[in-house]
Every structure is written in C-alpha cells, then in structure tokens.
C-alpha cells in the first residue's frame, strides 16, 4: 500500500509526465503490430497510380483531374457533393501564368497546380476549407504566443 502511494505521488510531478505518456503511447502502439492493418480501397478523393501521369507526359502531372478552365469541371470525389455547388471548378482552374507554363514544359505540374487553382487548393480551400481555417489559426496562435514571449521577455533588452 505504501509503495502504491509512492508511485501515485510520483505521478504528481510534472517532469515525469511526458516520459510516462511516451511510455504508455509506446505500449499502445505495439498493439498496432498485432492487429490486421489494411487499406480500404474505397476512399474519397482517390488519385491515380504513382508516376502514372508523369510517365504519360501529362504537363499537369501529378495533379491533373480533368476539366477545362471556366468551361468544364474537374472530377472530385467528395464526401458530400450535394453541399458543394461549385465542386470541380477550382480543380479545373489554371491561372494565366500557369497556362503559359504548362504550354512550355512537362515537368512543372506541381507548381502549376499549386498556384491558385488545382486539386489541393480545392480540397484545402473549398471542400475542406474549415481545416485550413484551423490550420492557419494554429500557426497564428503559436506565433502570437512565441512573439509575445519573445518581445516581452526573451528578446527584450531594456530591463
């Protein structure tokens, strides 16, 4: 009983908690080796086989999901297409510069499709836009905290 009490008391020391947490998490993760793990192949937003598009000489590889800017929508397999009136539009959109680049080279697909428009922008800003709100808020909060401490303490030189 006394030793249990001692263990319990040691748990009240904040310095040990991250280590304890790491240990517990590690033990749980070991279970991951024991259970069957497999990918359900019916996924949202599937993408073609790796390297398929670039090997097919697609200038928009690897994010080409069809569609023509302002005319035809790209293919996006979202969870709730009924709530997304403009689905596929962003995927199909290419900025004028991006169009120019796509005409000249085969190997700039990533850049072309991450300039405004493209699939990842569609997911990040439109279909799952709220994630990005949170994501940028997290970064902003971290920055607010860091810069508050930095400006008022760690980098302050007058006092």
């Amino acid at each position, binding site marked *: 009983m006394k030793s249990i009490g001692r263990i319990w008391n040691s748990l009240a020391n904040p310095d040990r908690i991250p280590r304890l947490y790491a240990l517990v998490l590690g033990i749980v993760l070991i279970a991951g080796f024991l259970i069957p793990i497999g990918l359900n192949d019916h996924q949202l937003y599937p993408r073609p086989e790796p390297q398929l598009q670039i090997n097919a000489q697609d200038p928009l590889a690897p994010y080409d999901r069809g569609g023509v800017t302002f005319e035809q929508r790209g293919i996006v397999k979202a969870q709730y297409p009924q709530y997304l009136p403009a689905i596929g539009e962003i995927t199909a959109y290419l900025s004028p510069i991006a169009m120019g680049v796509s005409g000249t080279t085969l*190997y700039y697909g990533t850049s072309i499709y991450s300039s405004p428009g493209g699939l990842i922008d569609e997911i990040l800003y439109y279909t799952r836009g709220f994630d990005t709100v949170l994501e940028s808020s997290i970064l902003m909060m971290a920055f607010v905290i860091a810069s508050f401490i930095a400006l008022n303490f760690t980098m302050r030189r007058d006092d």
Partner: protein
Amino acid sequence: MYPFLDLVTLTNVSVGVLFIGAAGIIMLKTPMDKVIMFALLQGGFIGIIVSAKYLDVAMAAAIFDPISTIIMLIAITKLDEIRKNKIKSQEEEFFA
C-alpha cells in the same frame, strides 16, 4: 554486354549517395563534418526528385539546401565559439 551497367541509373546512384550521406552523418561526430555529409544527403535526394521528373520540386529543394546548410554553419560556428569561451573563462577562473 555489361548488364550491371543497367543498374547505373539516376535513381540507383542517388540512392547510393543518399545512403553514403546518411551513414556519414551518423558516423562522423564533428558537427562540421556532418554538415558536409548533409550536403551529400541533399544531393542524393535532389537526384531522386529529378529521376521522378518533378523539376520544380527539385529546384525548390536545391534552393533550400544551401539555406539549411548556412543556417547550420552559423549555428555551429556560434556554438563552437560559446564553448571555447566557456572553457577559457573556466581556465581563467582556475588560474585566478
């Protein structure tokens, strides 16, 4: 005629460079040597990106490579200096 020459592709060479770089970073103990080996690692990595034909990514990686290296160099230099000063001041204390 030389079937093993087929193995000398960009991918395989880059993988080789990568592993050499990784081994170097792990084995060498001096931070300065590690930075040199890090350049090797980055070289291999850029090679692999190029073999995947994503030139834009390769370009960005190539630009960030020197940045990381320089940051590390500055930090290492500064740390060296601090440690040297510390030892020096300890010795002074010792003599005093």
